[in-house]
């Protein structure tokens, strides 16, 4: 099976792809292909951001970045599935996994598309805070687009006059998206460093687990603005 062609089909003809998911057409193949192709694109982007620290950090980030997105998905998907079936969803677990992987795959491709931009700034600008904020911005944009598509896909799936508890499930989905962002940012904080630090030895993890992702972003903004 050509894994990347499944992703291309998703990007080119999302409507047909979602229709296939709705009708449970070859979901196993879709799951495997999306998993492999998204891992590949995340790994490439991870390797590029790891190049800031250089050396082992490149390999470390190429493994950690795909893990960040995919583990977050594994952690969060049972919550969505069980709550949704409680409120009358007829979709099965494989359909949920495929839909969620669809969003993650879109994010991976979008990140991959930003790779030349990040590479350009990596070569031309030397500033940890700038590089960090640039990547946070890119990840926020790509994540926003991916989640929006997932949200739309899920809404289309549950729409129709016969859809039970539609409003409740819409709220549930919004809540889940928030949960996904929360878990993702905390997992990212636990798995860091993703960039490494210039002139410092490679660290497989940062021993101090205190603080959180949002505090660090605010700190970087403040440093950049000279506070």
């Amino acid at each position, binding site marked *: *099976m050509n894994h990347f062609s499944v992703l291309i089909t998703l990007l080119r003809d999302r409507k047909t792809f979602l229709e296939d998911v709705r009708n449970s057409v070859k979901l196993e193949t879709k799951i495997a292909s999306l998993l492999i192709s998204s891992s*590949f694109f995340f790994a490439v982007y991870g390797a590029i951001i790891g190049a800031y620290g250089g050396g082992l950090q490149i390999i470390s980030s190429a493994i950690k970045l795909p893990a960040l997105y995919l*583990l977050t998905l594994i952690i969060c998907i049972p919550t969505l599935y069980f709550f949704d079936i409680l409120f009358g969803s007829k979709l099965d677990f494989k359909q949920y996994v495929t839909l969620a992987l669809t969003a993650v795959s879109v994010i991976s491709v979008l990140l991959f598309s930003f790779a030349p931009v990040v590479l350009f700034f990596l070569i031309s600008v030397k500033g940890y805070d700038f590089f960090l904020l640039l990547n946070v911005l890119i990840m926020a944009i790509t994540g926003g687009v991916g989640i929006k598509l997932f949200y739309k896909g899920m809404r289309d799936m549950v729409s129709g006059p016969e859809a039970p508890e539609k409003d409740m499930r819409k709220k549930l989905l919004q809540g889940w998206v928030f949960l996904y962002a929360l878990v993702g940012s905390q997992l990212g904080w636990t*798995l860091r460093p993703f960039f490494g630090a210039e002139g410092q030895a490679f660290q497989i*993890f940062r021993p101090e*687990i205190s603080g959180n992702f949002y505090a660090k972003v605010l700190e970087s903004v403040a440093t950049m603005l000279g506070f």
Partner: protein
Amino acid sequence: MSEETNQASQNSSTEPSYLRSSPISNLDNLRISQQEQDKLTDLDISDVTMGWAYRQTAFSPQRRLTWLSEQLLTVGVALIFCLPITLLLSRSLSGDNVQAVWRWLPVGGVGAIALTTFWTGYRWQAGQRLIILSHLLDEIDRFNEMVAAVEILEELGSTQNSQLNLENKEDVLEALHLTRESLVCGLMTERVMRKHQRLMARRQQMFSNIERNLATLQQLQVNDAASDYGRLLNEAIQIGTSVHHELSRERT
């Protein structure tokens, strides 16, 4: 004169469609495409896989590279899951001890390789259960290659004023058509048998179709066995025989 015209029009109306229109376009229709294979088997068919299961040819030297790249991707994905999970667990269990985390990391690597080996073993075993389908798909590959060969001969014939015999050409087209029908019947029968073990009503009819096609194939006279068309015709008979053999085996 009018009788001859009548006869001709009658012949043309009783002729199968693949003999009436242009041969090259017919050959395109004869080929059993990937999508058709997917649809007929209800599985995702590729060079090395049938759904999750490995085809018998997956391990052949020609397809080793495809198989190896598949393995590499699987190990990569397994590493992406196993290493960070090991990192998180060892970090939590050792209380942020960097040495302990480094000591535990190889366990994650071994876990990823073990996971890949288990997954490959499972797919190989699934392939063993679909051995008949695997053989049928090999025959389809052979058939598609044959169609491509006929296409090339057609093109050569049209450009070089070849002395290829029209009667033989029609025989080959008929042979290909019958072979195609047998292969499609074979795939459908296999799917029915695979999906509905108890629902075997259609199997008998399909099987008799295959038997009839094979008998017709064997009746086709090969005037010149040494010619390209003659060889192709023989190959069509061989494929027909293989399909018949595989399904007979399944039936017993």
